[in-house]
Each structure stands twice: as C-alpha cells, then as structure tokens.
C-alpha cells in the first residue's frame, strides 16, 4: 500500500470511528485510564487491520513498509488517542522479538502485543547504569551451573522500567560474562513477569504519575529458549532498538508536539508577544520534523542508522522543551496555579517534558557522540 493512500484511508477510518476511539475518561485521567485507553485503541486498530500494516506476515502483520506503522503511530498521537510515550514500547519491543526470538515465539507473542492483549516492558537500566548501559550487573547464570542449561537463573535489579507493573513480559538485559566484560558479556532474555521471584515497585515521577518501576529479580528461572539472540549477544539486541526509537518513535513524538502547539494556539491570546513565542516554537518544530523526515526516508531506503541519529535526539529534546516553555510563557500561571482539569494536564505534561534531555541517553551523551563520531574531534580522554 502506498503511504499516501494509507494516510488518507486511515484518516477517514479514524474520523468515522471517532466516538468509539475517543478516551472515555475525563482529563487528565490516571495512568490506569491511559493504559486501558491505549490497549483498547490497539485492539480496535488490530481488529480493523490498521495496526497490522508494516509488520511481517509471520507475526500476524499484513506486510508493507515500516513507514506505514510510523504513520499510524503519528496519526493516533496527533488525535490524542494514546500517549506516544506509552505507545512507543510497541515500536521498540516488537522488532526485537521479530529479529532475535525463535520464530515460533515471535509468531506467538508479537500479535498479542500489537492487539493490546499484552503489555511488555524493557528491562535495561539499573541503579548503577545511567548513561553507561554496558556496565549493567543484573546476573544470569546457567541453571545447575553448567551449559548447555535448560534454564537461566537471574538475580539483580532494574530501574526506570516503564509500565513494569502493567506488563506481562519483559525484554531483559543480563550480565552473563565477567564483571569486566562490558558490552561483550551481556545476554537478552524474554521473561514472563509472573515468574516467581520478580518483584515490581513503582516509582512516582516528578509529575505524580507512577509510570516506571524498580524491578527486583531473586532467583528467577527463565527457560533457555527464551534467550533473545546469542549468548553474550545482548548488546546487539539493545543496539537494534536504536533505529526504531530514533525514527518512528520520534515521528510520533513530533506529531504529539504539533498537537500540543495546536492546543496552545487554540486558547492563546492574539497578541504580538504570543505570536513571537508561538512562531519561534513552530520554526523549531519544523526543523525537527524536517530532520526526522530525512531520517525516516534514509531508513526506508535501507540505510543503517547510527551516530547521526544523535542529532535527531538533541533536536527532539530541545523542541519538546521549547514547546512546554512556550506553554509557560503564553499561559502564565496555568502550570503553576491552575487547579482545573486543563491545568492538571499542562502541569503533568510540562513536568514530564523535562525528562526529554535525560531519557534514551542524556543530551550530554548525545553531544559526546556527535563530537567523536560525526565531527571527528578524536577521543576526549
């Protein structure tokens, strides 16, 4: 299917089913509401086929360019049907299973993620690994002590695991090599979250939402056939997520930011100062959208995305800050003092926006990568 046809057909379908798809809670809604809304929307989209475009047939998809599912994610973000941050887990975790799981496992579980029957989470970060993921220490050892083992025993802790308390499965990175093996001694597993020994402790974010959690693993036994990729090959699994996170997920985030600017323009007063603030945010969003568009086209043409996506990451974080800084300037007191429902929404989103320069590799890490890999400034050591 051509992307323009897909876009037009999807828009018509979304219009037609507006009432069915619209959130059924009053804003701002709780995280439980948001999750239920997302799974409901995914289920409607899966049953009608839209959710299956861009995914391979052997995991329940209808084939076609991955850009089709990028369009879908952007369309539902632009209509405020789901939060793109929550929705992005589909885009980063389904490809991991498709690329690294046993084909029969991928065929079994990916449709369950796409259709909203399941939630999955990503167990990467640990208390000791902020930007330095390769230092992770959550340990997996062969059950019974020797390989080939029928299972692996996992012990350790993960943190910042988004939606762990809602999740049925976890894509987990573990240390299988020596403590010094860094990225060469990491192995990925696909773990059922109801396995004995897993404890989830949600963390309250700065905006009051408990979106992510600490996850503890105490002698958690995982079958060997749940290994994703090769033994000690977990770094490749982790890195394979980057192209999706930096392309389709960004395109969806951008759609969401345009929608935020639209909501702001809907209520802003028509004066020169507002025009200046809104205009500058618009210029910044456009530059980001233009850059992300180039990146999606490169990916669709078969390019391997790498360090240059750090530029997209810096732009998306700066634009997100800019949009919410504009909110504070144009709607004075709304974030700080407004106790109406819309005040609650802007406040929650404003506070969340401050994470944009932190998650997925801090803005500083991105600039380090740009300096070393793109500007050839050599090592900084």
């Amino acid at each position, binding site marked *: 299917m051509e992307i323009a046809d897909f*876009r037009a057909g999807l828009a018509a379908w979304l219009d037609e089913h507006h009432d069915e798809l619209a959130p059924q809670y009053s804003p701002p809604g709780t995280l439980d509401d948001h999750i239920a809304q997302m799974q409901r929307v995914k289920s409607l989209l899966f049953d009608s086929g839209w959710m299956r475009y861009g995914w391979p047939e052997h995991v329940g998809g209808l084939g076609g360019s991955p850009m089709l599912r990028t369009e879908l994610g952007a369309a539902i973000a632009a209509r405020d049907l789901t939060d793109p941050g929550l929705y992005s887990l589909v885009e980063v975790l389904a490809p991991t299973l498709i690329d690294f799981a046993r084909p029969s496992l991928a065929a079994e579980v990916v449709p369950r993620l796409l259709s909203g029957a399941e939630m999955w989470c990503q167990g990467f970060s640990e208390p000791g690994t902020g930007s330095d993921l390769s230092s992770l220490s959550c340990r997996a050892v062969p059950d019974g002590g020797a390989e080939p083992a029928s299972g692996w025993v996992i012990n350790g802790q993960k943190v910042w695991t988004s939606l762990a308390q809602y999740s049925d499965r976890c894509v987990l990175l573990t240390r299988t090599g020596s403590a010094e093996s860094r990225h060469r001694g990491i192995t990925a597993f696909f773990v059922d979250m109801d396995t004995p020994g897993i404890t989830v402790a949600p963390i309250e974010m700065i905006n009051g939402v408990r979106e992510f959690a600490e996850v503890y693993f105490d002698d958690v036994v995982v079958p060997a056939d749940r290994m994703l990729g090769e033994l000690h090959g977990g770094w490749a699994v982790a890195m394979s997520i980057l192209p999706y996170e930096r392309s389709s997920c960004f395109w969806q985030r951008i*759609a969401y930011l*345009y929608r935020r600017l639209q909501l702001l323009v809907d209520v802003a007063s028509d004066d020169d100062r507002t025009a200046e603030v809104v205009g500058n945010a618009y210029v*910044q969003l456009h530059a980001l959208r233009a850059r992300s568009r180039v990146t999606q086209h490169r990916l669709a043409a078969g390019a391997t995305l790498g360090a240059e996506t750090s530029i997209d990451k810096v732009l998306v974080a700066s634009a997100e800050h800019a949009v919410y800084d504009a909110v504070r300037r144009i709607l004075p007191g709304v974030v700080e003092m407004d106790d109406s429902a819309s005040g609650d929404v802007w406040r929650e989103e404003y506070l969340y926006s401050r994470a944009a320069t932190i998650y997925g590799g801090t803005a500083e890490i991105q600039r380090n990568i740009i300096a070393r890999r793109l500007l050839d400034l050599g090592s900084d050591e």
Partner: protein
Amino acid sequence: MMDAERALLAETVRDAIAAAGGPAAGGAALDAVLAELGWREMLDAEPRDAIDIVFTALGNANGTATVLDDVVMSALGAAPRPDVAVILPRFGTWDPPGRIEADRIDASKIDARGLATGRAATAGELLVVCDAGAGPGAEPCIASVAVSVAAIDAVRGIDPEAGFHRVRVEGAAAAITPLDARAWESAVAAGRRAVAHQMAGASRAMLTLAGAHAVERVQFGRPIARFQAVRHRLAEALVAVEALEAALTAAGDEPNAVTAALAKAVAGRTARTVAAHCQQVLAGIGFTTEHPFHRFLKRAMALEGIFGSADEIAFHLGRGLLASRTVPTLIEL
C-alpha cells in the same frame, strides 16, 4: 538529477569558485565563471539543484556573485539577463520594494527603495516589483527603469565584500507590466531558499574552521578538542547545521511560500548559533582578520536580512498561526 551527477556538479562549481580566487574575487569574476558552467541553463532546467549547488558553494567559499538576481527574475517569470538587475526588499523585510502612487498610474511613475546585488552597478536596467498600491483594482506590477534614473550606492556595512548596493528610485518613469498576484510570493520563496542555502554553506564553513582549530590548538598539553566544553559547542553547531539542511530538503520537496519561509527562519537561527559557538571556540584568532572566520560571520549577518530575518519571519508565521488557529504540519513522509 541523480545523486552522483549532483555531487559531481557540486564539486565542479566548488572548484571553479576556488579557482576564481575565492573570497578575494569580486562578483563579476564569479558571475563569469558560473555563466561559463551553464548556470542560467541549469537554473532553467533544474532550478532546485542549480540553486542548491551554486548557493551552497558560494556560502561555503564566501564567494560573491550576483546570481540571486537570476533566481528572483526567473521566479517572477522574466528571463534572467546579466544586464538587468533586480531591486530586492530593504534589509529585514520582504514586501515589494516598489510603489506606484495612485495618482501616478497613468504617468507610470514609480518610487522604490531597496537593496541590490553588485549587478546593479553594471546593469543598464532595473526591475522592481511594485505593491498593489492604494487604489481600487490596483494590481501588483513589475516595472522596468533605467539605471540612470536610480540612486545606487555600494553598501559598506559590516561586509563590503558582499557587494550589496542601496537603491533609491523617486518618481521615475517606468515601463510597467501587470504581475500575477502570486508572483512576488514565489519570488520571495525562491530568494529565501537560495539565501538559506548560502547561509547553510557559510555555516558549514564556520564549523569546519572551528573544528580544525580545536584539533590543532594545544592548551594545557592537549588539543582543546579534548575539552568537553569545546566539544559540546561544536556538537550544538552541527545539530543546527543539519537541521537547516533538512529544512532546505523539505523546502525543495514541498516548494511553497511557507516551507521557504521556515527554511529561511531556520537559516537565521542556525547561522547565529553556529557563529556564536565557533567564534568562542576560535577565541583569540577568530577575533582577528588574520583568520578567515570573520568573513563568514559578516556574510551570514548580511544575508540574514535578505528576504527577512529569523525573528521577523517567526513573528509573521506566529501571527498566521494565531489568525487561523491552525498549526499545519506541512511536510509528510
């Protein structure tokens, strides 16, 4: 144009500009070189690539030419000619530079104030787009006046080498032809894309100079490129340059007045960001005229005002968003 063909042409244009003497060469020398390379034929056949390649190369080499006149004339539907110069809007603005007073329409007398490239100094004729005027039924029009009736002075300003001229026409007799209402908008869009490409080339050049300096300059026993404060400035500059190049790709893929305006606004922001970071990294040597940085800085400052600055364009776009209460996404996958 295929990618390989485009790259080859870009290299040819770059080499030709360098061979003509780079920054030292005046407008006429580079015009001759570009004419020799078939610039006008290229502009006619492949305007997007022609403008991209030539203006990027000019920006990158800090070259001065008068090819902006050709871009504007061609967008106005007039055949570009080396002996005809165009009056550009005044610094920081994009309204038509000319005006026909209502009571003078019959007499075909016009007033105009604006800028021009170096072509105004050698041309025999000036083209000026005039406002619709005050009268009912008044249409925008394009007027042609003899250079002899205009006051034309070279602008010294911050960048005398840029070749800009100040042009003033008062109550001069003109040959007037009606102009399609959208033609000026197209001319502004084409001019903005061209100037934004030139600013992108200049921004790349500043970053290259600062990057080379950071790697070579040793302080406290190591190249300053090893200091994170320096690296992060240069990284920010690259982010800005790449964003501008993407905005220009978007303006080429979806050519219209708004994508061109956005590209020019991004160009202004980028040039300012890049200049500030690079000047700081270049530090002492970048503060002197012994280092070429200052030429790019000054050229970028001059170009920022051609067809509107980033601030003015952003303000204008913001007014439009508030008036329509709509935030269009403009470009799709």
